[in-house]
């Protein structure tokens, strides 16, 4: 009996595995059919569209809604939107798909991924698409190898959010955030003294380099040149900025010590646990919606010179290895998504910068910003914004710099040692690209 039983078990296991494999194979085929090969069943061109969500709020729903509207209004094209995690996870997914020979037709990826994508020879130049729109010039920097490789879509700046109710309670002017680093410290201490609420929180986990960049830029130098191989991690400016971050917690005691996660900082602000936060302008809609107090948004307080900021966010890329018909359909899709009506819609529902001046002039957008003037801060900031840290080996370079900052905030290393080590590690990682040029 036992022999029969074990035999049955083996067969059952084999059968189950076999079914599982068939199912997997089925998935694979379905993936190919809906992905990059034109479907033979009808004349509809299908496009796979991978996108990330990098800020707070129900952005995936909003995105899927927009894509559904595109599909309704464009018979002959069907776009499959695929939510793929955060920016790093989405890039990993896209790169894996490229390696297996089934790239998505179109994806939103970090604007800064351009060097790595070019190194993989993965994307098509989009010069005509970019030149036919009236995108803000700041959003198109840097041009790499003489071409535009991506179309600006969900672009953001680093801004300062502040709780107007707490500012009023502490006797500060609620119409204006702090305009200098010094005033930031003063306001934060005053609020802590008068209300008992934490002065400020700056996220230091997730995309540390990004929140840090405005401080470095304001202290005199950005973290990198625009050539993909040069970084300035141990500059005097970076040192000044990092020392200021440390001082916020340990000298002025206006920020909780330790490492603050990117995702929980907006929650803390919305719940009135902290009076100010530094975050992406892309989180604006969600913050305004969830906060029970009037939300103030201002430029980053200025350091040595004028107030500056850092740009971030994602662009549309169209991939190599898809059919000409798919490329054309993908261009239609990207053109539609970045057209004034859609760009304005996306901006109003997220807080991302309207990417063209026409989008800002859109009548609905104009009515909207009259009611919510906070949404004008980021577009006004564009003229003072510098490009986001962008190099080859991007994720590794980010990791190197983020670790350096975190090891200082965590009290393991001093500012100078950490930044020098980061510079050295980054130069080693970028060395192969510097010699070959690509």
């Amino acid at each position, binding site marked *: 009996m*036992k*022999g029969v039983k*074990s*035999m049955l*078990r*083996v*067969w059952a*296991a*084999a059968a189950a*595995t*076999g079914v599982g*494999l068939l199912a997997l194979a089925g998935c694979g085929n379905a993936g190919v059919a809906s992905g990059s090969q034109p479907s033979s069943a009808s004349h509809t061109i299908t496009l796979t569209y991978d996108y990330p969500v990098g800020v707070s709020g129900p952005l995936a729903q909003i995105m899927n809604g927009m894509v559904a509207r595109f599909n309704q209004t464009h018979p002959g094209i069907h776009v499959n939107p695929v939510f793929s995690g955060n920016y*790093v996870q989405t*890039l*990993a997914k896209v*790169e*894996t798909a*490229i*390696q297996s020979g089934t790239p998505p037709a179109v994806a939103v990826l970090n604007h800064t991924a351009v060097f*790595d994508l070019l*190194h*993989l020879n993965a994307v098509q130049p989009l010069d005509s698409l970019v030149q036919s729109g009236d995108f803000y010039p700041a959003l198109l920097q840097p041009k790499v190898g003489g071409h535009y490789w991506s179309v600006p879509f969900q672009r953001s700046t680093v801004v300062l959010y502040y709780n107007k109710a707490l500012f009023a309670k502490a006797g500060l002017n609620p119409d204006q955030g702090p305009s200098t680093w010094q005033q930031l410290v003063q306001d934060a201490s005053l609020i802590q003294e008068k209300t008992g609420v934490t002065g400020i929180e700056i996220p*230091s*986990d997730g995309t540390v380099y990004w929140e840090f960049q405005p401080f470095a830029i304001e202290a005199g130098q950005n973290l990198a040149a625009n050539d993909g191989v040069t970084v300035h991690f141990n500059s005097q400016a970076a040192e000044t900025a990092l020392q200021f971050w440390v001082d916020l917690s340990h000298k002025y005691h206006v920020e909780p010590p*330790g*490492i*603050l*996660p990117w995702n*929980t900082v907006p929650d803390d602000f919305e*719940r009135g*646990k902290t009076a100010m936060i530094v975050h992406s302008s892309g989180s604006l809609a969600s913050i305004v919606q969830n906060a029970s107090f009037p939300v103030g948004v201002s430029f980053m307080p200025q350091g040595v010179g004028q107030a500056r900021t850092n740009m971030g966010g994602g662009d549309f890329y169209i991939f190599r290895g898809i059919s000409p018909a798919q490329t054309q359909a993908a261009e239609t899709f990207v053109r539609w998504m970045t057209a004034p009506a859609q760009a304005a819609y996306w901006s109003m529902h997220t807080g991302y910068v309207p990417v063209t001046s026409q989008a800002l002039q859109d009548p609905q957008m104009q009515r909207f910003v009259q009611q919510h003037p906070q949404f004008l801060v980021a577009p006004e900031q564009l003229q003072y914004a510098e490009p986001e840290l962008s190099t080859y*080996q991007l*994720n*590794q370079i980010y*990791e*190197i710099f983020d*670790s350096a900052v*975190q*090891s200082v*905030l*965590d009290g*393991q290393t001093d500012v100078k040692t950490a930044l020098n080590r980061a510079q050295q*590690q980054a130069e080693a990682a970028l060395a192969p690209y510097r010699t070959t040029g690509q």
Partner: protein
Amino acid sequence: MVQESPLTPQVHPGPRGLPAPRWSQGSTGLAYAALALPAALVLAFVAWPSLSTLIHSLLALNARDEATGFAGLANYRALFAQPLFGHVLANTAWFTLAASTLSVLVALALAFLLARVRGDHPMARGLLVAIFSPTIIPTIAAANLWLYFLAPQIGLVDRLLRWLGLGGENWLGQPHSALAVMVALYLWKYAPYYALFLLAGMQAVPRNVLDALRLDDPRGALGFWRVLLPLLAPMLLFVTVLALLNAVETVDPIYVMTQGGPNNGTNLVMYYLYQLGFEFFAWGPAAALSALLMAVLSSLSALALIVLERRAFHWQ
């Protein structure tokens, strides 16, 4: 109980003295035919990928994971030169040591307690469900649960602590406490599972040994150290190896809860492997790390099998 353990060989000889049933006579061919499919699966999904990883680790790979030539040991050198690698190894060592030691100890205590619970007691079933529910929850779901447990201010843990006058701690916000959380999650998930093995081991101790112990050593202390523990030793060793393997392979809660942070404090070797490949696109060093892990983990697995085959249950 013992023979139902998933790693015990499933081939049972017919009861001695009786003639083998008719259908099994001369059916070796059928047996091999039945094994062909599983064997093919093992070849396709275990043997070939392992071999391919080994070969890859010796090739120069570009960012698209395409081979561009022979690299010798360059990938291994590059792996050890990675700025994070030492940090990750240290994290993994601490985590593995703490998680496997504690989980085996907790499992042993649980097994002794469970051995005393009478199966027909009305509470017994509820108790078992309560203890084993973490084990059957998928890790991804469990990790998401724990994210809620641990959320500062609103999480269950913080509220309980505040009730005690403590709290306000951001458990995942500091490298050391975050790694401790990972150890706790491991215990929560795996200790009951290991207890099941140890309970099986205890229940396999012959009745007459227990009866003799009850007479000779009524207080139980000496009997535990001199008799029960040695009898349980092979099963303990097996569970320890299993615990080590599971600890080294921990990746899903890291991916869900911390992504290796803060400050790489929870960056364990399996997560780092993912990072090397899919975030840094350093396919060469990733292949080298896979090959090293394969060597270490398969030696551990082999040890577990040898323990089970040669040494376990020798009293029967």
